[in-house]
């Protein structure tokens, strides 16, 4: 039986060593005086024995030298302590109310007295009332990661710096006026987002989805932080998915404002060697094609050892994983956690196109990739993923498969589209691939090893937001220099031609040297 299966949980105080009962103490109980409220080990032992015999469950792991925690039915508490228990409600976090059995909070009824035969042994007991969970902190905890694990990174800084998005932000390009749609498990309003002033449009429910404010999994909330790490001023629209992925894409395309970019950290491991596309995935194939034909940039994760579809669809930007071996931010390797494969459905299609940042596989009681500390709904499934951040309800989790890499690339696309909104999905993909940093080592989960130049392991390599931005702007510069005097004047007067400051040139030289 688990702890939450006991109808009532209470805290019992055996006879204190000092002259005053724990419940009668008038002075503050601190580390200076708590010893007098501790109990003799024999009294603790006898109290536990008596309570067990009465039918209570004693939570050994939750008991101390001062108190004993017990669980049981309301009927048992009534019979043993004579307690008057009623059903009560409390809001433990915004929009979450739970019911529990408890005594009145009135002091005369709150303290439950032991039966006469145990009065000398047990001072009394109080019902354990559920606490209110405070909103998760906007700044992540410092986690003691498993001994086998590598250093992890924070959002937005770690991702922004290694992908060189931070350098683009310093030029004033931050994804302004670009709407990124994210199809995922929902979005919880974590303080991480509000404290940084990130712009979140209201969550839309896709067919079969419910409760827009809830992200019990944590995946959507956590991965969305990667978008903002690269494009802090974009507007993010979460589309909470139900069972129907095609309906989710159509919901996104019908939204107002319509997203220019869709980021998808999910897929079906279906494009396996020797297979052909099943009929049930053709509506999804058509939905992706339809989105791209409307000019929407669609990004999909390649998978974590999966043969991910739609990650293999020819129209999408297929995102794989590269791991950075900190502290050297230029020490890059293909992630052993990420997918890479030749599509069986689309001849010549290689997955991925390029990569974002992921962890690499490390055995910490099961293969994990704990490279990023991401915000999640407190007590969500991913709040408890290994390795622990110190608590399973602190609203933070360590995870970073290609689900993290995909929204990073979507964020970089937002920077490019802010700079040049006329770019087509194919042009965005082409410029991203041309500007990526080559990755020359490391082996993916499928066994493909990165080498010089484009390869199956990482595609064109790790995305470089700064170079992608320069590449985007570079075409403007090329148009300017090849244009007539009139065209050049028109470009300058319309603001299409950027000004090159000394600082910009200096930054470009620095960028070139570090590639």
């Amino acid at each position, binding site marked *: 039986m688990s702890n939450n299966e006991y109808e009532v949980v209470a805290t019992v105080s055996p006879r204190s060593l000092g002259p005053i009962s724990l419940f009668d103490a008038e002075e503050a109980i601190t580390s200076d005086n708590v010893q007098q409220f501790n109990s003799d080990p024999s009294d603790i032992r006898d109290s536990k024995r008596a309570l067990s015999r009465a039918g209570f469950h004693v939570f050994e792991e939750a008991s101390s030298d001062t108190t004993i925690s017990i669980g049981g039915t309301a009927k048992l508490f009534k019979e043993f302590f004579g307690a008057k228990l009623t059903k009560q409600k409390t809001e433990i976090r915004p929009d979450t109310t739970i019911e529990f059995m408890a005594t009145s909070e009135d002091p005369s009824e709150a303290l439950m007295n032991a039966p006469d035969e145990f009065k000398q042994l047990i001072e009394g007991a109080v019902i354990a009332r559920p606490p209110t969970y405070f909103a998760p902190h906007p700044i992540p905890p410092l986690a003691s990661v498993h001994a086998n694990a590598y250093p992890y990174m924070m959002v937005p800084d770690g991702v922004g710096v290694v992908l060189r998005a931070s350098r683009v932000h310093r030029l004033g390009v931050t994804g302004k006026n670009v709407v990124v749609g994210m199809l995922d498990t929902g979005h919880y309003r974590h303080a991480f987002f509000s404290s940084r002033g990130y712009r979140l449009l209201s969550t839309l429910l896709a067919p079969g989805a419910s409760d827009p404010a809830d992200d019990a999994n944590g995946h959507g909330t956590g991965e969305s932080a990667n978008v903002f790490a690269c494009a802090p001023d974009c507007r993010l629209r979460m589309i909470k998915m139900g069972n129907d992925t095609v309906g989710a894409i159509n919901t996104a395309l019908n939204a107002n404002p319509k997203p220019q970019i869709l980021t998808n950290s999910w897929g079906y491991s279906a494009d396996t060697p020797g297979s052909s596309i099943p*009929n049930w995935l053709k509506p999804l194939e058509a939905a992706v094609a339809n989105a791209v034909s409307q000019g929407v940039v669609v990004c999909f994760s390649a998978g974590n050892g999966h043969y991910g579809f739609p990650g293999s669809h020819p129209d999408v930007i297929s995102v794989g994983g590269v791991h950075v071996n900190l502290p050297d931010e230029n020490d890059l390797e293909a992630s052993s956690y990420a997918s890479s494969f030749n599509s069986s459905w689309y001849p010549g299609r290689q997955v991925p196109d390029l990569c974002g940042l992921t962890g690499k596989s490390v055995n910490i009681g099961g293969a994990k990739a704990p490279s990023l500390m991401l915000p999640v709904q407190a007590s969500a499934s991913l709040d408890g993923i290994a390795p622990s951040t110190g608590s399973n309800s602190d609203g933070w989790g360590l995870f970073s498969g290609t689900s993290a890499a995909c929204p990073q690339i979507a964020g970089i696309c937002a920077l490019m589209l802010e700079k040049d909104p006329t770019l087509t999905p194919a042009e965005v993909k082409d410029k991203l691939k041309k500007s990526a940093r080559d990755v020359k080592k490391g082996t993916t989960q499928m066994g493909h090893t990165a080498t010089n130049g484009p390869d199956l392991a990482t595609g064109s390599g790790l995305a470089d937001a700064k170079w992608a931005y320069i590449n985007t702007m570079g075409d403007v510069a090329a148009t300017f220099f090849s244009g007539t005097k009139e065209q050049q004047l028109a470009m300058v007067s319309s603001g299409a031609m950027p000004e090159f400051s000394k600082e910009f040139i200096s930054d470009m030289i620095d960028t070139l040297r570090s590639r």
Partner: protein
Amino acid sequence: MANETEIFGAQVVLKQSDGSSILDATESLTAATIERYRLPAETVGEARKALEALGFRVVGDDGTTLSVEGSRAHFAEVFGLEVGAAQAGVAAHATKIPEDAQSFVADVIVPPKPSLFP
């Protein structure tokens, strides 16, 4: 026991005037080819009305399919569709199509939930 009132989303694959649909495509469906399979807006509108008349909520379309919502029991009754299969990781398909919908419905599909890649 399955909750018969639980709401699910499904894709209604639409037929073109010649009776074919994306399910018959022998080429990949991409941005370059999808236009060939897109139905006229008027036809999609008629299909939308017909599905609403059958008791489904139409929540979107992409020109080749319609996204509809309905209860497990209603999908089973109208299309003989076992939504539970999708929860078990297998796509569910229509096993029957009402006579008055046969001219425009090629199939009704409920996909299984996708994998997340955390």
